[in-house]
């Protein structure tokens, strides 16, 4: 069996995303792969990971096979440490209690800005997307991990609309806009793991996923990519990671 057959694109996305989290962290997770990946981390390497959901949940402990359909459903609260108001859980971000935010992305650009509002001109959009949800708040107020599908139309030089700010126009522009804290930290796709240059704040490839080469990543990206000097190849999903993931999402709600 080849490496690529052992897991789906969604599965490696979830597993590599989970690996970005550290035990003891406080993570604000969005629905979908972020929720699943955070729960996977909690059930494997990070038993003391504290997961927050925008519905108003602190210290979630989601049940295997009962993944919530959104972060505003009662399933999110199962064996949580605390349930509070939606605005109040977001204010925890503003106060600084959260180590890392973790969301999916529909469209991202070279400075890590995310668009989930408009395709085309906002005044007369080709497509009206669902909008920010908690995304703008999370990305404005803490360090971010984004897990998303790698497609050329999703990885663009400049997003049509900045819904959730990354580093805006790079350099110090994020801080200059009034956002002194946080910023984009990692982007995970089924092809690679990305970070951001400390000075220019431009995205760069830190590691290739197993079986993926530079060209494949560049070909699926809508702008010229930088590769880190210490570029390496991520180790493949372990059996334990895959088994745990499949136990958590047996119906493949978020890993289809």
């Amino acid at each position, binding site marked *: 069996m080849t490496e690529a057959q052992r897991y789906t694109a969604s599965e490696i996305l979830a597993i590599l995303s989970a690996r970005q989290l550290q035990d003891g962290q406080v993570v604000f997770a969005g629905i979908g792969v972020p929720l699943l990946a955070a729960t996977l981390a909690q059930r494997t390497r990070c038993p003391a990971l504290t997961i927050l959901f925008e519905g108003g949940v602190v210290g979630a402990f989601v049940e295997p096979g009962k993944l919530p359909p959104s972060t505003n459903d009662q399933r999110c609260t199962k064996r949580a440490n605390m349930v509070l108001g939606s605005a109040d859980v977001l204010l925890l971000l503003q106060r600084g209690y959260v180590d890392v935010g973790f969301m999916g992305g529909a469209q991202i650009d070279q400075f890590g800005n995310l668009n989930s509002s408009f395709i085309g001109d906002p005044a007369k959009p080709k497509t009206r997307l669902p909008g920010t949800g908690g995304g703008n708040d999370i990305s*404005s107020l803490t360090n971010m991990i984004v897990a998303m599908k790698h497609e050329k139309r999703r990885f663009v030089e400049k997003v049509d609309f900045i819904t959730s700010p990354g580093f805006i126009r790079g350099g110090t522009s994020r801080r200059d806009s009034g956002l002194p804290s946080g910023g984009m930290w990692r982007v995970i796709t089924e092809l690679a793991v990305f970070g951001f240059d400390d000075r220019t704040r431009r995205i760069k490839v830190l590691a290739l996923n197993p079986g993926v080469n530079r060209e494949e990543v560049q070909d699926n990206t809508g702008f010229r990519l930088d590769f880190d000097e210490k570029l390496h190849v991520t180790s493949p999903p372990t059996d334990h990671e895959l088994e745990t993931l499949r136990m958590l999402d047996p119906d493949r709600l978020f890993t289809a």
Partner: protein
Amino acid sequence: MPDTLVEPYTRLREKMAQRDRSLREKVVSLEEAAGFVQDGMKVGIGGSTMSRTPMAMLWELIRQHRKDLSISRCIVSTDGDLVFGSGIANHVVTSWFAQGILWGLSKVMRHHVENGGKRYEEWSHMAVGMRFRAGGMGVPFLPTRAMLGSDIVGQRPEAKQIDCPFTGEKLLLVPALNPDVALIHVQRCDPYGNAQIDGLQFMDIDLALAANSVILTTERIVSNDQIRRAPDQTKIPFFCVDAVVEVPYGSAPHECYGLYEPMMRHMEAYVTQVNADPVKGMQEYLDRYFYSPKSWNEYLSLIGMDEVLEATQKGRSIYND
């Protein structure tokens, strides 16, 4: 941007002074309660996404063909489809608007916003919360540190960026939102409107305090004695509330914490039908589930006993060890 974006304090107080805030029974029928919602009003909706949606009240308003409502809500799900698709609202204020994350984009929302001249006014999630909170506190704005630097703020001249007079930092002031009426569904309240909410509260407490009137729908009405035995469990005080309606399964097909989960087969069928044709599909759905039933219980019958009881079993299980 209307010049009434933030109601002047004297007008807000005058409206409040005119409300009957006395301790009195206010139990009415769904039909009667709908009378509190008039064409053109700003309507705040409690719950979030598929949770504790005041669906029965929306169902009744759609049956009564309200017009030109402006809706605001924590996060908007199929309730948004329904108010746009039925034509009762032409404006939605929220941070996220789709049917649910499982189903991608709402073709209904897209149809009405991209072609139909209806407005989806987007704020950050926290900003929506701070707008209700400012409204509930009786102040014209609250300061936040989100939305800065994004293009969302460029779309929102209603918000004002300032340099903090204490620290010099950039801040965004978001304006108070005081809906004319709020629709909120709760697990329990007494005939006066003292409400207890189990589990996720979302933005309902701020919304109740902010609104110039509140209609509560409730899974059950309990005695005032029962409320007074655990006053620290009361989440909404009676004097915010203008009408109380007892409607079991009043959030169906959405969930009500601890009582029932979303009725997902119905939701799936709904999404398939309306996304296939946002106009005709929606019209057929409304005809069948909204306009035809003689009562809310008949609507529940159309969803079906199997779905309702399955959702109930799942709902109760949140309390299982």
